[in-house]
């Protein structure tokens, strides 16, 4: 629904406003990838940018009135057009890898803290098929893990699954199986 607050006219967009517009349009663009063709997508983003530049209201009000990026992108959708959103897939994969690393380092950090509390000592464990060790003695403390197949394969599998899910990759198979007229 449109914002009913009185319109306060804005003469010029500040750097922050332009940054907000860019961020919003980037998110719309990610979602448009799945519902429009490339040329249409570029035209829609260009048109939205021009409209936002000419919108006399404060940028917060103007963006709120446009609605969430995914909902706006859905309104630009072409009938029957559903393709994978690879941009969102890449971001999802990146986030999944980051989460994997944080959990992995927290696990090894926890092991190190436990070993350090009973020093001198050494502990061995397995985290998602990867052998992890932590030690603490008079010479120093440290963590380590083996560089076997799991070291590369486990993150690769996580990244691939996140990419395929984030990109809604099943849309490619579905659009390929639909009859062509």
């Amino acid at each position, binding site marked *: *629904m*449109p914002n009913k607050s009185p319109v306060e006219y*804005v003469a010029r967009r500040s750097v922050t406003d332009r940054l907000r517009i860019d961020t919003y349009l980037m998110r719309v663009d990610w979602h448009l990838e799945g519902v429009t063709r490339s040329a249409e997508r570029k035209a*829609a983003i260009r048109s*939205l940018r021009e*409209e936002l530049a000419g919108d*006399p209201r404060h940028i917060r009000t103007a963006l709120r009135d446009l*609605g969430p990026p995914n909902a*706006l992108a859905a309104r630009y959708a072409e009938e029957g057009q559903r393709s994978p959103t690879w941009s969102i897939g890449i971001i999802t994969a990146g986030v999944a890898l980051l989460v994997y690393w944080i959990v992995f380092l927290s696990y090894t950090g926890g092991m190190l803290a436990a070993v350090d509390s009973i020093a001198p000592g050494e502990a061995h464990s397995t985290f998602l098929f990867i052998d992890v060790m932590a030690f603490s003695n008079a010479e120093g403390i440290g963590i380590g893990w083996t560089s076997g197949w799991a070291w590369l394969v486990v993150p690769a599998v996580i990244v691939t699954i996140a990419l395929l899910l984030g990109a809604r990759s099943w849309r490619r198979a579905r659009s390929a199986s639909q009859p062509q007229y």
Partner: protein
Amino acid sequence: MSLVLQHYSCSITTMTRIRSQQDAQLVRAVLPLLILTLIRERESYGYELVERLEALGVSVSTGLVYPVLNRLERDHLITARMGASNNGPPRKYFTLTTAGEDARTAAIHQWQGVSLAVQNASNSEGASDAE
């Protein structure tokens, strides 16, 4: 008693939701025709169209109007030009094309056809109620 009231309140909420969904669908269906008509009266920019629609009693957001404008421009029913404004950056003004004029005429005929059908259905319903 409270169970009955709760059920009644739930029914009203559902009815309201259905009603608002129907309203939104109706507005979306008629929006291209309204926009073509307003642009025919005088060239306008996106937000100005939202204000003009509000003045007509049609409550819409820019999130509804901009995709329609984009589609109309893509189909060459309207053209755009960048024009200077007194109190801000340049704005994108839309004008109706000849194809847009034809599309508007066709849409009006369609709308009148639907309106007539609804009117006929309502009249026959009223007649059967009276019997």
